[in-house]
Structure formats: structure tokens, C-alpha cells
């Protein structure tokens, strides 16, 4: 048997190659999305597919593995020699450019791709364990791709997230869709590949009877499996969505009932770059006392439950906006609080928030029209009375609100029972006399000594103080530890304090007053009430940083979101500028539109229809009687296949013809056998035509329902594409 025949005779050979080509393309384009290849990925993928195709053929010849690797080395050497000659030629001609080097680098990338895929393909076909190795590598690739999901960092696999973002889908849903699709494709590939590398298994499979009952059973089973998988997917989604929300939304307005805390001492507040909200400042905030940083308060923890700070309920913290992110709220400005400036912010939530947040204390929150409901969860505008003081000028201002009742004052001064807090506070503030000076001394002390880390890994029992291992231990912690420590120490000195939670953002990363808040901007800080000013943040900024969250704002994403907020077409039509060079939005990742999907499906359907018509009626255009006979037989056999009658493994054509309804294949089958084995007798065109027409006339003996089914059943197409024999 010649080489191509030997390869082509392997069951599922072609479909295995098709799958491999698909995986090579996916891997190449995926890699290019993560690391710029420098060479168009289409070329690199094509080189890889060529390498795979050639090796698949060569692997079924008598070439030894040593010979194969020598051939590869020869290819590399030839490439180098060829380019050496070109370089020398260029040098002799006096050229001083690096055009050849540039071309060589592109060729090199393609060559690397071809060699890598050739080697894997060789191992796949030649080594008994090849398919296992490939399975392991595929699994490892999948694990590596999704590894960051172990902690539910759903923003990490950039391709999946980008796809979800482009299509306006939920990250987790997209992950399930992509994961399931890849899993299905992977299983289908491994199934085909295993049969292609173990041809005997295919034989066993085909020998099994395919009776009508079994077909029905199989279909029912498949439907049941799909239904079960769907239900499992839904359950998985529901389960992990809840975990993910708890994980990424750590402290994002959840669990706001009094007596609980949304903060965790074991994992830092959102440490990922996942977008949480877009905030647009509607006015300048020139006298921001924390410039370039800006605090956006969502809630506050002012009650001490004996172990940690928790929500106090509505009786206290009256400055907080008592509203959800989808409600309207308004109140009178506190006339007693000075040194403030009005600041309007429009907030477009990208992640669910139970509570609205705003700069300092908002006097009004109104709902905005959502410009893109599939992008923004909710939108509102907050009118804040933002701070405009300078902390350094407040050094001698008294703390606490003179309007507080003794009960409220006591609430904000509730002490931690551990005396070490007060001892340390007194020690640190021994040189300070005023409360604000004391707060600054405490803040500076922690900034100097604390080590910022996302993973403090303190071992704390449920009934133990989670701050003590930080403050009296290794000083490793994050904002939650710092804020608690400051509040405990402040209160021990008689300074009314609480913990503010929300976002801390760097305005220098804003653009045109648009701020992209990420989960990594989630923050908790200590606050002290200063008379006539209000609650003022005192925040620790550690000199020593062991690990920190991602800091860079995705400016492309920010610009994309800014684009959503641009005036609509009725005010700013884009038609006038669309032909200007440089106006096209850079596509971070190509994603198919609905038109693409529908178009591709329609094209595939059309191709299938054309192919099926050719399969059934192709005999009419056959150029010779021999071909007409052969194609005529295929036409009828494929029709019977689609109608539910297939030739069994080991069954001769004559036996099958006898089994066919009314023996419709008998004449044509005889003619085919005669034509194949007789050297002299060649059937005439008329005889062939007569046999085909007679057989076609007998098709009416098949029930109409089966004939309709045969029209729609793609089985014959699949059998032909996968190299099945008629």
C-alpha cells in the first residue's frame, strides 16, 4: 500500500488531522494574544499545521525516529545555510540594511512553530504513549490557562475575560461556555485520535449492531447526558458565582446588617484588577486634601463586638448614605461642618454593589439613565460635600462632635480589652499633646513599621483577636489590619474613631476626570471625627511592601468605557469622522459578531447542502460511464444510509444489495462488481443509466417518513468526510 493510502486507511485519520489543525490554530492565536509573536499568527499557525500534516504522512512511512530528527536538523541547517548565503551575498553587494535579518526572524518563528508541531505529531503517531503525553500536556495547558481561577480571580485569563467583556457576558458564564466547549472538543479529539492511533478499536466498535432500538437508546442517552451536563453547569455556576461574589466583592457593600463585618483578616480586599466601577467627576476637585488620592466612602464600621469592628446599624454613623445603588436619596447638608466643597460624581457600576458610595458624605444621590444596561449594573449621580481642608492645619482642633449624646460618644470610644493597645498607643504618642498630633504619630508609626502584604497568613482561632498577631507580632498585614490597629489605639487615647470602607483611588490614573475603580482599589481606613470638620481619614502608607495588588489601570479599557459615555449619535454623529485614519478602535481581541456567527452557520449549511446534492446527484455530471456507475452507487447507498439502512462491517456489496428494499441496489451492485473485476467487460453508458434509474425508481418502496429523514440526515456527509467506505 502506498504511503498516502496507508495513512488514509486509518479510521478517523482525516478528522484527527482536522482537530489537530484546529488546536494548533487555537494555541497559536492564544499564544499571540498573551505574548506578541511579532510575526502574523496566521503564518505561524499555517507553518505549524503544515508541519503537522507533513509529519502525519511521514510518520506512516518507514522513516525511523532518528531519521526524522536528522531531517529536522537538516531543515534547520538548510535554513541557516541559506540565510548565511543570502547575508554574504548582501554584504558583497554592499548592502548595509537588516532587511534579510528581519525576514529571517519571521521565517525563524514559522520554522519554530513547524518544528514544535512536527515533533509533537511524530510522538503522537509513533510513540505508544504519545496520546497520553498529549492528553497530559493538553490538561496541563488548560490548568495553566485557568490556574488563576483557583482563587476565583476571574479576571486573570485575559482571553476569556476579554471575550466576556466584549460580548457583555458574565465572566463565570463565559468561563463555563469556553471551558465546556473546549472540553467537548477535547474529548471528541481524543476519541478520534485514540481510534486513529488504535485502528483495531474502531473495528470493534463498527462491528456492533446498530439496530433501530439501539439508535433510539443512544439518542435518548445522549440527550439525557446533555441535560444532566446542563443542570450540572447551572449548579456549578450558581455555586461558584456565590463564592466569586463573596471573594471578589470582599467588602463591597455586602452583609451590612448591624453586628457583622464585611472585612476579612485572612485575604486582602479585592486584589485583582477586575473593574468595579467607572466614576466620572463632573467638576474639578482642586482642593482635595489627599491629592492625588481620593477616598470614596461606602460604609463604616464603628461598633466593637469584642473581637473586631462591625457595622453599628442606623443609630450611629448618620453621615453614611442610607441607600442602595439603585435608590434615590437626599438630605440636608450638615451646616456645622466646614471647609468643604461641592463635588458631583457620576458613578457607573461594573460590578454589583448593594450600597452606593461617594466622596466623603453625599447629600443627594439620584439615579442616572443607564447608557449601556448590558455593561453597567447600575448608574447614579452623587452630590457630595467633599473635604477641602488640610490635615496639617487641623493639629490643634478638638476631636469629637459636641452635638453627640454621651451614648454616641461612648460608642465611638468603645475600647479593646487588650491593654497592649493602650500601652503601645501611649508609648508611640508620648511626645504629642493634641489628639490630631497623636493620630499622626500613630499613623506614622504604623507606616514606618508595618509591612504591607496580601497574605499575612496569621494563625488565629475564631475567638481570638485577629489584629494582635499583626500589631504585636510580625507587623505583616494589609489595610484591614492597619485600620483596626489605628482605631483601637486611637480609642484608647480617647479619640473617637471608626473604620471607613470603600475605595481609595489614585487620581493620577484618571483620564478626563474618569476613574476606573478596580477591586484592588477596595480599601479600609481609620477615621477620626474632628469638630467642625467631620470624619477625617487617617491612613497608613507602609514604607515596606512585601506584595501588593495590581496597580496599573487598564487605560484602553478606561478609554473604551469613556466612549460609552460620549454623547449619542443624535448629538455627535460619528459618520463625519469615520473615514479619518486613526479613528478605528483598536480591537483588543477579535470576537465574532452575531452576523459572523449566523453567516458562518449559513455558509456551513449551504456547503453541506451543496455537498449533499453532489453526493446524491453528482452521478449525472460524471464524465465517464465508470464514474457514473460508481457515483450512482454512492448516491443510492448514501440515500439508504441516511434512511437508516447501512452496510455492516464485513458485509459484501452483493449481500448488502440483497438486503436493500426490493433489492434496489442489486443491478447496480452487480454492474459495479463486474466493472471492477472484469478486464474486458465495461458496462455501456446506457446500461449504467438504466440501472441507476431503475434503482432510483424503487426508492418509493421506502416509507415517505424515512425518505424525508434521508433528506435531512447529515449521516452520509459525515461518513464521506471521515473516509467511510460505501
Amino acid at each position, binding site marked *: 500500500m502506498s504511503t498516502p493510502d496507508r495513512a488514509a486507511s486509518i479510521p478517523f485519520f482525516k478528522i484527527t488531522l482536522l482537530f489537530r489543525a484546529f488546536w494548533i490554530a487555537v494555541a497559536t492565536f492564544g499564544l499571540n494574544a498573551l505574548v506578541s509573536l*511579532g510575526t502574523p499568527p496566521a503564518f505561524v499557525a499555517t507553518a505549524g499545521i503544515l508541519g503537522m500534516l507533513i509529519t502525519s504522512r511521514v510518520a506512516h512511512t518507514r522513516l525511523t525516529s532518528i531519521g526524522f530528527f536528522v531531517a529536522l536538523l537538516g531543515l534547520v541547517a538548510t535554513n541557516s545555510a541559506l540565510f548565511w548565503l543570502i547575508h554574504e551575498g548582501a554584504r558583497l553587494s554592499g548592502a548595509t540594511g537588516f532587511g534579510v535579518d528581519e525576514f529571517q526572524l519571521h521565517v525563524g518563528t514559522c520554522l519554530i512553530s513547524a518544528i514544535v508541531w512536527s515533533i509533537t505529531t511524530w510522538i503522537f503517531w509513533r510513540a505508544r504513549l504519545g496520546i497520553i503525553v498529549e492528553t497530559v500536556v493538553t490538561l496541563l495547558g488548560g490548568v495553566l490557562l485557568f490556574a488563576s481561577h483557583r482563587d476565583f480571580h476571574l479576571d486573570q485569563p485575559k482571553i476569556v475575560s476579554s471575550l466576556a467583556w466584549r460580548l457583555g457576558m458574565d465572566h463565570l458564564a463565559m468561563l463555563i461556555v469556553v471551558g465546556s466547549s473546549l472540553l467537548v472538543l477535547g474529548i471528541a479529539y481524543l476519541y478520534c485520535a485514540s481510534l486513529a492511533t488504535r485502528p483495531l478499536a474502531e473495528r470493534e466498535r463498527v462491528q456492533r449492531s446498530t439496530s433501530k432500538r439501539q439508535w433510539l437508546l443512544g439518542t435518548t442517552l445522549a440527550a439525557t447526558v446533555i441535560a444532566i451536563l446542563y443542570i450540572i453547569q447551572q449548579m456549578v455556576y450558581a455555586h461558584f458565582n456565590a463564592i466569586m461574589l463573596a471573594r471578589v466583592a470582599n467588602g463591597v457593600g455586602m452583609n451590612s446588617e448591624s453586628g457583622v463585618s464585611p472585612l476579612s483578616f485572612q485575604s486582602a480586599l479585592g486584589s485583582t484588577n477586575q473593574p468595579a466601577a467607572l466614576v466620572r467627576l463632573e*467638576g474639578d*476637585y482642586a482642593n482635595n486634601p489627599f*491629592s492625588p488620592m481620593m477616598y470614596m466612602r461606602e460604609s463604616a464600621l464603628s461598633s466593637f463586638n469584642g473581637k473586631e469592628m462591625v457595622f453599628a446599624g442606623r443609630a450611629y454613623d448618620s453621615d453614611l448614605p442610607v441607600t442602595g445603588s439603585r435608590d434615590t436619596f437626599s438630605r440636608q447638608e450638615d451646616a456645622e461642618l466646614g471647609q468643604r466643597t461641592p463635588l458631583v460624581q457620576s458613578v457607573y457600576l461594573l460590578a454589583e454593589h448593594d450600597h452606593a458610595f461617594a466622596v466623603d458624605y453625599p447629600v443627594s444621590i439620584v439615579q442616572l439613565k443607564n447608557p449601556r444596561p448590558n455593561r453597567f449594573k447600575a448608574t447614579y449621580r452623587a452630590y457630595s460635600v467633599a473635604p477641602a481642608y488640610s490635615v496639617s492645619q487641623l493639629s490643634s482642633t478638638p476631636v469629637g462632635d459636641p452635638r453627640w449624646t454621651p451614648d454616641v460618644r461612648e460608642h465611638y470610644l468603645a475600647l479593646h480589652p487588650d491593654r497592649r493597645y493602650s500601652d503601645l498607643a501611649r508609648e508611640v504618642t508620648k511626645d504629642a499633646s493634641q489628639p490630631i498630633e497623636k493620630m499622626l504619630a500613630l499613623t506614622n508609626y504604623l507606616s514606618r513599621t508595618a509591612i504591607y502584604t496580601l497574605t499575612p497568613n496569621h494563625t488565629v482561632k475564631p475567638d481570638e483577636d485577629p489584629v494582635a498577631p499583626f500589631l504585636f507580632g510580625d507587623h505583616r498585614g494589609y489595610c484591614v489590619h492597619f485600620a483596626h490597629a489605628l482605631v483601637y489605639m486611637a480609642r484608647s487615647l480617647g479619640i473617637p474613631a471608626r473604620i471607613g470602607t470603600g475605595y481609595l483611588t489614585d487620581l*493620577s490614573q484618571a483620564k*478626563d476626570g474618569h476613574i476606573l475603580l478596580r477591586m484592588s482599589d477596595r480599601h479600609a481606613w481609620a477615621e477620626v471625627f474632628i469638630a467642625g470638620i467631620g470624619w477625617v481619614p487617617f491612613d497608613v502608607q507602609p514604607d515596606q511592601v512585601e506584595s501588593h495588588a495590581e496597580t*496599573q489601570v487598564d487605560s484602553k479599557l478606561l478609554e473604551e468605557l469613556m466612549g460609552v459615555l460620549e454623547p449619542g449619535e443624535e448629538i*455627535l454623529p460619528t459618520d*463625519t*469622522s469615520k473615514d479619518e485614519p486613526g479613528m478605528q478602535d483598536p480591537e483588543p481581541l477579535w470576537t465574532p459578531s452575531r452576523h459572523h456567527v449566523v453567516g458562518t452557520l449559513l455558509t456551513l449549511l449551504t456547503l453541506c447542502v451543496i455537498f449533499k446534492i453532489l453526493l446524491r446527484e453528482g452521478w449525472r455530471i460524471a464524465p465517464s460511464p465508470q464514474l457514473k456507475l460508481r457515483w450512482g452507487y454512492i448516491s443510492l447507498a448514501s440515500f439508504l444510509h441516511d434512511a437508516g439502512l447501512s452496510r455492516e462491517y464485513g458485509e459484501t456489496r452483493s449481500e448488502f444489495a440483497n438486503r436493500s428494499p426490493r433489492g434496489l441496489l442489486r443491478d447496480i451492485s452487480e454492474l459495479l462488481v463486474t466493472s471492477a473485476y472484469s478486464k474486458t467487460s465495461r458496462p455501456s453508458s446506457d446500461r449504467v443509466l438504466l440501472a441507476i434509474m431503475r434503482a432510483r425508481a424503487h426508492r418509493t418502496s421506502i416509507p415517505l417518513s424515512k425518505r424525508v429523514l434521508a433528506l435531512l440526515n447529515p449521516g452520509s456527509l459525515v461518513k464521506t468526510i471521515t473516509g467511510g467506505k460505501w
Partner: protein
Amino acid sequence: MVRRSVRNIVYWCVALTIVTACHTAVAQSSPDKGSPKKDLLFDPFDPFDIGDLDESSAANDANKSAEELLGDAFFLLRSERPLDARTKLLKALQKDPLMYRTHYLLAGYYLVHVGHFRLAMKYITRAEELFEKKHGAPPYRDRLLQLEHGDILYYLSQIRLSLDNYQGALDVLDRYTSLGYSADWYPGARAWILMKLGRIQDAIKVARAGILAGAEPGRTLNMLGILLSMNGQPQEALEVFRKAIANEFSSGSEGQPATPLNNSGEVYKEMFDDDKAESSFLRATSLPDGCEHVLPSLNLALLYIEQQKNEAALSVLDAFQHCVAQFPLRNNEEHAALVHLARGRVDLHTGNVDRAIRRFRTAMEGTQWFGKIGTNQNDLVVGATISLAQALRRKNNILRAHLTGSWSDWVAQQREIASNTIEAWWLMRRARQILTGELNDLEDLSIRNTDSLIEYATLGETLQGLSRAALDARLEDEKKRDTRAQAQLFYDMYRAESLLGGWNSREALALLDKVIERARPRYDDLLRAHATLLRLQTLEESSARYRDLAYTIFYTNPAELRNYGLPLPVKIVGSSVMRSMITSGPFVHASSAAGGVACTITALQDPTSSSITLRFTCPDNTSKNKVVEDSDPSEVVNKLSEALFREEIKNGGNI
């Protein structure tokens, strides 16, 4: 400077425009609504009339007409309150979407204040469309209409320029002149576009003509200086920059002398006149407008890095960042990536390789907005890519000298080395691809190319991967064309590095020795250090020359010795186990036959506490003396290695 000029033009043209608009509004308003003075938003000739811009006016916006809001926005822009102005403009747009002046002002806002050019383009094309819809197609007979239309065209050309559509920008300027318009900004703008199109001679002619006509002399002189510098006329360029600086200083607070000062510094740097370059950059950074752009600070920092003044480099970057922090609405896109690149290089040369790697990765990921300066994204990408690849290679050398306490640590270390090796190889390859492709056939090979962000002293590491034939031919060509004596040393260095990888190492060694000998003290320290380290790699560790060169490096750039994987010859006093441990780290036993002075490591073991103390002493340089202690023998060696080969510069580590 371009930014400021554009802003000034915008303000004054718009002032004129708004006066007209307001007069129109007044004329159209009913006479019984009140006095004209009251209805007029403001009187630009009355210094006490600043319009109704108190804080409560925001609440009254609903009652204001689009023209009134436009007037408010104009004054807010003048008062450096861009966001308030933007809000007013958007409100005006809602009230009257067909008012072209609003679109025009918003285009200016997004061009000048935000750098969001695509949005600016949408507004300006809409402004032009609405303008023509209202006043018909040009030409216009009315002088005010001509002015307004000319301004729209000016914006359109500037936005196209910012979107890298140079020919489109030039076409707009051609339309501008064909309509008979003229303005002070025209020569400078046209010269800049011509320069971008590579038509340097034409640009010089236009700039010279502009200067003769007295058009915006500061900006045009600066432009001419840049053009002359690009045309290979550095002396003439410096003369022109001198005039530009004087002119900018004479403009008082409106002037921007930092720009021509920075440009003259760049020319001095190209001429290898490092003292004058430093002086120019220093003056530029000390001026109020010096922190508006990162360039003077970045140039100064990079100059210091070449001189191995790492502390000074960090101080410059700190000063810049502290200065820029005063502008809360300034987007760090303008400078963050460049600052990370410069800081990363300092970290790399001081042995803080992990931090350097982090910074280079951030620089590569960060988007740098370059506005209209000559440098582009590819210059940054290639600079950061090469530096990251170098950092990964240095990291591998450090890992190889790092002693591991367990097998699992050793396996993890080997895995990291393998992954770093592959990544560094790929990055170097990618850098060569960008250098030869996107960056116009390695145009940056001309040493100290102003636009380049490459570290020239170590560029040879990247060039090594190019074909020898092509590189040799190109280096020969550059050497012939480049008349700067000091640049020749760099070309020799690259040739030496290229030869080191091949068979002709004798010539390579001679070239390296030449570089070490002729590199200018104080100025080319990084080049000399790199050459010395490469020379060290070719020497026997037991030789006297190795010892001398190693100590030269150790006393000046200690981190680099470990970075390049070169052990320091030391005398070791201690048990045989400790001697073996120490020589497995970044040290080698100094041969007494080689002579010369070597520092000593004394290993002391305390039998009671089982702690090991390593005492490093140098007889001729006591500042290097160190003592470290640990119970684990491998860890104590690692600690000594860190203490000796990693420098931590205080107050320079903030990002």
C-alpha cells in the same frame, strides 16, 4: 510648548469667537429683558467682570442658554478648571446640539487637556460640518468667519497630526493657505508636520521663513533647532536653541524655556558634551514648566545612569514625580512607563533585579502617551524589552550563585532559570525584530539617537543575535559616517561583542581593551563597566588581571559583578565545609600566586549557638567590610552575597 501654544491660541481665538457669539445673543434677545450689560455674559475688556461663576451657578445651569454656558466654560478653562468647563460644554451641547462653537471648544479640550484625539476628531469634524451648514461652504468674506474657520482647520490639522495622519494634517494646512488664511502658528505647525513626513529640508525652509516673518518666534525657533539637529547641524541647532531659550524667558510666566533647554541638552548629549547636557537638563528640570513633561527629567536620569550615578538618577526621578503629583488631574500615562523604565535600569545596575524585572514588565504593559514628541511606543517597547531580557539574564546569574538549602529549592531554582532563559531569548529576538522592522532598519544604531530609549552601553548584547555579515557592514558604514570620536568606541564595543561569540576572539579582546582604556572617566562609566565585565568573562579566575579588574568593578559597581555571573576572588579563612560553601556562591578562592590585594572572608562558627558568622574585610577599602550571621551555612553565604552585591538606595524606591 506645543501644548501651551495650542492652548493660548485656543483661548484667544475662542475669546473672540465668544464675544461675537454673545453679541449675537444680545442682539437677538428682547430689549425689555434688562440692560445689555446684564444680559451679556461678560465683558472681556472689563477686568472686574469675570462672569457669573460662583459655586451656586451650577444649579442655575438649567436656566442658562447654550451661549451662556459656553461663556462659563471658556472662563473655567482659563481658570485651569477643565472638568468644570467640560461639564458646562456638555450641558451646552445638550441644549443646542447644532452649535458648532461647543463642538469646537470640546475638540480643543480633548486635544489639549486630555489627549483623547479620537474624540477630539469627532468633535472637530462635527464642528466643521455644522459651521459649513450654518455659513455655507468656504471661502468666506467676513473676517470673523474666516478666523473661526481657520481655527477649526488648525485644530483639525493638529488632531490629525496627533493621530499620526501626517499627510492629512499637511493637506489641511494646504487648504488653510489656499483660502488665504494666515496665522502666527502656521510656520511652526507646518514645519513640524513636514519633519514628521521626513521632509527635513522643506521644514527648515518653512521654519526659517516663519522666523523672518516673526511668527511665534519661541516655538518656531525651537522647531528650527530640532530640525537643524536632525539635519546633522548641531552647532547651528544650539545657536538657534539659545535664541529660543532667551525668547521663552522673555515671555515671562507664559514662556516655556524648559522645552528648548531640554532640546539643547539632547543636542549636547548627542555631541558627547555631557557636562553641558547635564547643565541644560538641570536647568530645564528646575524651571516651573520643567515638570510639565517627563523628558528633561528622563534625559537627565538616563545620562546619570550612563555615568553610573544611580543615586542622582533616582533623585531626579523622585523630584519629577513629586512635582507632577501637584497636578492631580494629570494622567500618569504621560510618564509612568518611562519612569518605570529608568527606575528599572537603576535597580538593575544596583542588583535589585527582581524589582527591575517588575518595573520593566510594568513599563512594557503601560501605555505611554507620547503626544507629539519624536519618541514613539516602539522606542519604549524595544527599550523595555531589551532591558527586561538583560534583567532576566542577570537574574539567572544571581540564581546560579544562590545556594539552595534543599532539593526542592534547587529544582525550583532550575525551573526558574530555564523559564528565564527561554523568556530572555524570546525577548531579545523580539527586540531585534522591532529594531530591524518597526524601527526602520535599526535607525537607532546611531549612538545617542535623541528619540531612542535604548541603553547604548549594553546594546551589543542584543546586536549579537544579528547576522555578523550584516552587522559588520552596518557598523563599518556607521563608523565612516559618524564623525563623533566618542561614538566610535560604542561601535567597537558592538563589534567586540559580536566577535566574542565567534572564532575571532583575539580581535574582540583587543577591542574590549581599547574600550576599557579609552572610555571617558566619569562620563562613560557604564560602557567601561560593561566592557570590563565582558573582558573578565574571558579571563582565568585565578589570574592577576582577573583579580585587578574584578576589584575595580567591585569597588565601583559591586552589583554588576554578580549580575554578570563573575565570582569575586577572596581569601577564605574557615573550615573546609565553609570554604566549599563560600566558593559555591559568588566568590572564588584568590590564588596567592596571582599576587595583589584581595579581601578576606572569615568564617566563624559558634559551637554553643550553632550560628555561623561571616566576616568580610577589605584591607584597602574598609567601607566594604560586612558581617553576617545565620545558623544555616548556605543562608549565611547568601546573606553575605546580598550584603555585598545589592545596593539599596534610600528614598529612591517609590513608584
